[in-house]
């Protein structure tokens, strides 16, 4: 598998993503600067977390207009899988690859802790190593992770299995108390129509090494390598 990590001014999880990908595949991911309008042929594009362009105007909106994002949208349209984590999720909604928007957390606070997620299904390149309804533990670290979409969009996402992960408690129950940011329906991550683009607020790349306290995130990268190699 060949993978790319898009790097914006203000990205700060690009190296974590690089390490997680490097450990899962046998080759080195390509780091692609936002000012480039081209990138090598790759099997996976990742848009990492951070504070691209200082979150000016709206989180992710400046990055979504950068030269490389035109090419990311091109590739995504052709079916190349794209994974956006945290700020990357915000960039993907701002670029129109995913519906909805990520608003200020309902409690107005930056939240940085591990959360439990319920994996909806394992029929995508991102989740093949998980089981349906599996409970996983992944860290979050964000101020603007409150997922919003209109009712029609929410219904469509739920009805077509496009909610990838819900926030839940340690028993797997999706409750308001387990929702860290006020996201509608407890949504932590969503897919595009073809389920080739995934945006999620939690950071799988931060829990992809036993020495860092867990490997629940590693399964995503292993699954991607298996599906795309």
């Amino acid at each position: 598998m060949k993978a790319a990590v898009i790097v914006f001014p203000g990205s700060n999880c690009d190296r974590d993503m690089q390490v997680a990908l490097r450990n899962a595949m046998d080759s080195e991911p390509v780091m692609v600067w936002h000012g480039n309008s081209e990138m090598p042929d790759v099997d996976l594009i990742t848009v990492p977390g951070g504070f691209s362009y200082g979150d000016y105007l709206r989180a992710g909106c400046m990055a979504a207009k950068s030269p490389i994002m035109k090419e990311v949208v091109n590739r995504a349209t052709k079916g190349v899988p794209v994974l956006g984590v945290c700020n990357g999720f915000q960039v993907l909604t701002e670029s129109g690859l995913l519906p909805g928007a990520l608003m200020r957390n309902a409690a107005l606070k930056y939240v940085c802790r591990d959360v439990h997620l319920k994996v909806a299904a394992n029929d995508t390149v991102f989740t093949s190593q998980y089981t349906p309804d599996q409970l996983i533990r992944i860290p979050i670290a964000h101020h603007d992770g409150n997922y919003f979409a209109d009712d029609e969009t929410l219904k469509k996402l739920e009805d077509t299995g496009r909610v990838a992960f819900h926030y839940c408690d340690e028993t797997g129950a999706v409750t308001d108390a387990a929702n860290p940011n006020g996201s509608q329906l407890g949504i932590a991550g969503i897919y595009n129509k073809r389920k080739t683009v995934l945006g999620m607020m939690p950071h799988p790349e931060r829990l992809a090494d036993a020495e860092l306290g867990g490997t629940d995130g590693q399964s995503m990268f292993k699954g991607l390598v298996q599906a795309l190699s």
Partner: protein
Amino acid sequence: MKAKVHVTLKNGVLDPQGKAVQHALDGLGFDGIDDVRQGKFIELELSETDADVARARVTDMCEKLLANTVIENYAIEIADA
């Protein structure tokens, strides 16, 4: 020519920051506030001299960058500087 743009959250979109401001005002003893909505104000200096052309250009800017029309509305005011 000057363009003034107000960007506000759409009706029905929760505004936690507006709510926090409302609570703070309540705490200061300002009663009778039914709701507070918070938004952004953006001022642009344009070299364009035709107001209609300027409005069309700023509308395009709002659609492409200044507002996220999934959650926000925008209002444009064109004024001679």
